[in-house]
């Protein structure tokens, strides 16, 4: 297959598939690259609707009606009743109950199976979206942010605080205290007030303050 026919195959005859793929890629990209959790969830919903759209468009038939029986095709509708009444006067055999549709009339109705599958998928989708939003609210209550990078920073700090054993923490605190004292001594040797402020430990995060406060009472 040469290039021209590929383009005409994809872009002209199957343009709808191209747009489904674009929608799906937008959703996937948002889930991967966006840092805001709510944006990620919106991307998830877009991804989901793109797949549902693909399924529903498979069910389309040209010149077909919606999957609800027309009055003249309904085996139990008024029309069938009339024809049954007419038949009872003539042929007794053919009026035995309702008749299934002929293959020609089957072609006139859209395919109901993908509709059913996707109908439940939409409702389950909103339930899972609500669950994910509840988790997002909980994350915001716990960490005060829903941006992924800030969240990872805070998680790293929390991990460090939780995972270090008390002995190592004590050793680190001692090292830090020594470093502080050395710096203070240097600052006292040099400029008086300005140097002291500079010599304060650079990290002002809650962890360092907490870790330094703990050993204080032992002194």
């Amino acid at each position, binding site marked *: 297959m040469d290039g021209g026919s590929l383009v005409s195959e994809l872009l002209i005859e199957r343009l709808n598939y191209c747009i489904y793929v674009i929608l799906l890629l937008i959703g996937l990209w948002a889930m991967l690259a966006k840092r805001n959790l709510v944006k990620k969830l919106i991307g998830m919903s877009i991804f989901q609707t793109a797949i549902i759209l693909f399924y529903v468009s498979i069910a389309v038939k040209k010149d077909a009606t919606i999957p609800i029986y027309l009055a003249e095709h309904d*085996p139990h509708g008024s029309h069938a009743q009339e024809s049954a009444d007419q038949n009872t006067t003539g042929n007794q055999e053919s009026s035995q109950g309702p008749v299934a549709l002929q293959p020609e009339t089957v072609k006139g109705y859209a395919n109901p199976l993908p509709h059913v599958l996707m109908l439940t998928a939409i409702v*389950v989708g909103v339930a899972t979206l609500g669950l994910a939003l509840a988790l997002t609210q909980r994350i915001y209550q716990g960490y005060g942010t829903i941006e992924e990078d800030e969240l990872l920073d805070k998680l790293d700090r929390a991990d460090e605080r939780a995972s270090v054993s008390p002995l190592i923490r004590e050793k680190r605190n001692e090292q830090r205290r020594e470093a502080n004292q050395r710096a203070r001594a240097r600052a006292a040797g040099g400029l008086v007030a300005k140097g002291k402020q500079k010599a304060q430990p650079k990290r002002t995060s809650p962890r360092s303050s907490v870790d330094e406060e703990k050993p204080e009472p032992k002194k």
Partner: protein
Amino acid sequence: MKLFSLIPVLAIGALLLWAGQDFPKWGDLASPASKSSVSSHFIAKTGVDTEVPNMVTAVLADYRGFDTMFETVVVFIAGTAVIAILRGSSIGRPRRKDHEVEAEPDLIVTNTVRLIVPVIQIFAFYVLAHGHVSPGGGFQGGVLMGASFILIALSWDLEKAMARFPIERCLFVAAMGIVLYGGIGLLSMLLGGEFLDYAELEKIFPVSRGMARYYAILGVEIGVGFTVASIMFVLYANLASEGRLKEGL
């Protein structure tokens, strides 16, 4: 990070576009999904088997009833999980006051809502019960019913809606929906058929096999409607108040 994530995205896109050449054209009558014997059987025989003109409802609640039952269970589990996640999470946490105005519920809005909420609820029942012959069914009717309570909560406040539909009653109604669904299935099993084989209900109801399935589909849809309506309201009530269940939005 953003550029790095473009690599898998573009790779998947190229793969999907390459696969797209093999898909059927728009509205193709000879596509595999339309030619398959399953969907042709559904279109041809639904009216004979169940007497329901809307094929989607019949396939949803009868042929694929097991699937729908567990979809309903998934919705129920999601609602209970939202309650479990958010309950008590905001105790001792000050309520945000920065974007809040001290205002009575608006007179015009509340009076209009008083007028239209009964109409919405009647329409929800109509959609639920008329789903056999027109678009609609348990999911849509349930969502509309839940939306009417959400409208009450939006126009007055959450307490007013919770007084009409407290959270315990929500969970009870949701569970009753699933029990109704499974109960109809079990009843048809006790009468000698298989699980969710509604045609066996003709032994206790004075109707034909087709009409037995018709009425059983209605009962199943009512069960789905109960569950979906209460879970939708549970979702809103919990998310709007951070699990406090009072003083929402």
